């Protein structure tokens, strides 16, 4: 067992899989010699060789296309898109190709690739280094979408994603790469080392895809969150002084509906939190699903606390970011509703 931040945990996952499976390789912009702008692939080229971890041209569509071809050959490529904001040039290859290969060929060809990409705000990255595009992928049949919230989960989920035979979009909440940011931006930053989930086994293990994690049990209201917002939700639950059950979804598709529904049936109340823009965000799907499954148990309207329907504005980081202020209010409203 070692203590790792999320970057180290992800690096360890890749290291383990490169060591274990010669069909695993990883590439992307600046991931080779340099080890990635967030250092997630640091040292892997040196350790595993030039053809196992390398730089690519700046063409996200090409990166994913090439990975699909490799997947069809039988490899398990893990590609990095430098920022989720730059995934759109690869959108066609992901949506029309990776996600559909198995279906359209009736299993003749598959694309077992993993697309890793840092996403989310909280780092003054402005419009093009802060986006949370998960809902643009959860609508796509054939694609799995995974988001970890701790170093332990990050490693276990990434290994599970690499071993999964379907294409997986693996979104990394970059704000919590180095510590479990809870949204209180004016308080001192906490490092991962103080968090229990920074205890990460050195070797191989998985956290299964499709299973949510109840990170706080409670009876009065269910909070659904993922990525950075799990920590915001936890802090908010604590500070709102409500007996909230906080669920870390971990995988958006396939969604662990059972865990969600069981919780909301118990609490009768539900608050959904995400950073992405509001309209057609993944919160909409969660809200609709909860409503459909728990209608007769709901005692208050389901609320969505999300980013606003604007691009992420550089100077207004904390007015945009759905921090504890807004989540606490929502929890209180839910309790009154």
């Amino acid at each position, binding site marked *: 067992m070692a203590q790792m931040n999320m970057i180290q945990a992800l690096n360890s996952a890749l290291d383990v899989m490169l060591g274990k499976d010669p069909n695993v390789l990883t590439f992307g912009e600046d991931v080779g010699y340099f080890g990635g702008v967030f250092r997630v692939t640091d040292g892997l080229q040196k350790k595993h060789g030039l053809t196992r971890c390398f730089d690519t041209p700046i063409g996200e569509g*090409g990166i994913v296309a090439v990975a699909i*071809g490799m997947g*069809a*050959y039988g490899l398990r490529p893990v590609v990095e898109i430098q920022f989720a904001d730059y995934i759109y040039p690869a959108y066609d290859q992901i949506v029309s190709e990776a996600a559909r*290969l198995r279906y359209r060929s*009736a299993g003749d060809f598959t694309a077992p690739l993993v697309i890793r990409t840092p996403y989310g705000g909280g780092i003054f990255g402005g419009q093009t280094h802060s986006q949370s595009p998960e809902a643009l992928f959860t609508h796509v049949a054939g694609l799995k979408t995974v988001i970890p919230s701790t170093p332990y989960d990050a490693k276990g989920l990434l290994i599970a994603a690499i071993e999964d035979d379907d294409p997986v979009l693996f979104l990394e909440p970059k704000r919590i790469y180095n510590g479990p940011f809870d949204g209180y931006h004016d308080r001192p930053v906490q490092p991962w080392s103080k968090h229990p989930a920074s205890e990460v086994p050195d070797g191989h293990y998985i956290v299964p895809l499709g299973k949510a994690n109840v990170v706080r049990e409670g009876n009065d209201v269910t909070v659904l969150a993922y990525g950075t917002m799990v920590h915001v939700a936890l802090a908010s639950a604590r500070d709102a002084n409500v007996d909230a059950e906080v669920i870390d979804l971990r995988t958006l598709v*396939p969604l662990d509906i059972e865990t969600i529904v069981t919780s909301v049936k118990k609490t009768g109340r539900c608050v959904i939190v995400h950073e992405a823009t509001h309209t057609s965000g993944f919160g909409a799907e969660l809200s609709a699903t909860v409503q459909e499954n728990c209608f007769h148990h709901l005692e208050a309207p389901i609320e969505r606390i999300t980013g606003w329907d604007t691009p992420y504005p550089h100077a207004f980081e904390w007015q945009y970011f759905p921090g504890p202020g807004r989540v606490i209010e929502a929890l209180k409203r839910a309790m009154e509703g």
Partner: protein
Amino acid sequence: MKNRARLSLRVPAPPSRPGEKPDFSGVKLSGAGEVRRPDIDTRAHDMQDMAFALIRVLDDKGEALGAWNPKLDAETLRRALRNMLLTRAYDDRMYRAQRQGKTSFYMKCTGEEAVSIAAAFAMQPDDMCFPSYRQQGLLIARGYPLVEMMNQVYSNARDPLKGRQLPIMYSSKAHGFFTISGNLGTQFPQAVGWAMASAYKGDDRIAASWVGDGTTAEGDFHHACNFASVYKAPVILNVVNNQWAISSFAGIAGGNESTFASRGIGYGLPALRVDGNDFLAVYAATQWAAERARSNLGATLIEHYTYRAEGHSTSDDPSRYRPSDEAKAWPLGDPIERLKHHLIAIGEWSEEQQQAAHADAVEQVKAANKEAEAVGTLGHGELPSAKTMFEDVFKEMPEHLRRQRQQMGV
């Protein structure tokens, strides 16, 4: 800079439109046997001229000339000819089937048979093809059963793709034929990835892909050339310039400004330009590129200069945008006629044998079609089970799809 001139927007137009005389006076042809054949290890930079020439082997008299003559034995040529005839007969039958309402859609490759049949002959059977929808000839030449192709076109109970794909979007890993995409060009960089994987694994198999002239405009074309060049991927990148992209002439794709082969120059890729209606020329160019790739010398871009002799698909009526006799005026002739002519010229074939071979092809198609139709055609007869609609979205069916299948009541 006073009195600066007024700019104007140029929109290219083809030389002739319906009601006008076909005009191919702009087409510059090299003579058969005229173009040099560089060694396969020639630096791309030292063979840029090849991107502007046109490799031709067969001359008007049916003689095979020059350094690119692959010198194939007569038996191989006869097999090739039979495959081209079979492809054409298959196309004709399936086209009619669509017109008879037995399926929703069909696309012919008439006039372009040499492009895929010659490639299949020049490559190894375990090399991997990433075709567009107009390379059905690859499957046929590789011996994929016609009846399977028909089952797919008819979306019947034996359709290997379980009724999920539009007709002609075949897939057969066993025949090195990648699942065809409806989205143009996506397969081009995928082929490069497959080739990179083969190289990564120290394998000896190479990949090939095909796009149309129109499709070269997609970003994926650029990605393919670029990644292939950077990683020296063992792949053959084919552009089938059949002069038209539905109703748009090749000038709309940039074909008036330079050759499509010359797109390779900027990536440092060797580029060949070849008479796509000359079986021997296509064979020779493919062989050259395959040998180069297999020798770890990287990718080649090949432009096949040909002509789409029929409509784009069963949804298209080309007489609305080009002279209806344009196909006849095409200066490079018909690939089947030209190979036949050659075989006859070298004394290895006759008009009678051609008749018989044609009849045989039609017969094979007929028999296969009978078998396929006996199973079912779109919406009639034995159909795939709708239940399978929820399978293969993921490897294991997740809960939400299980629920949806239940809701659908199957």
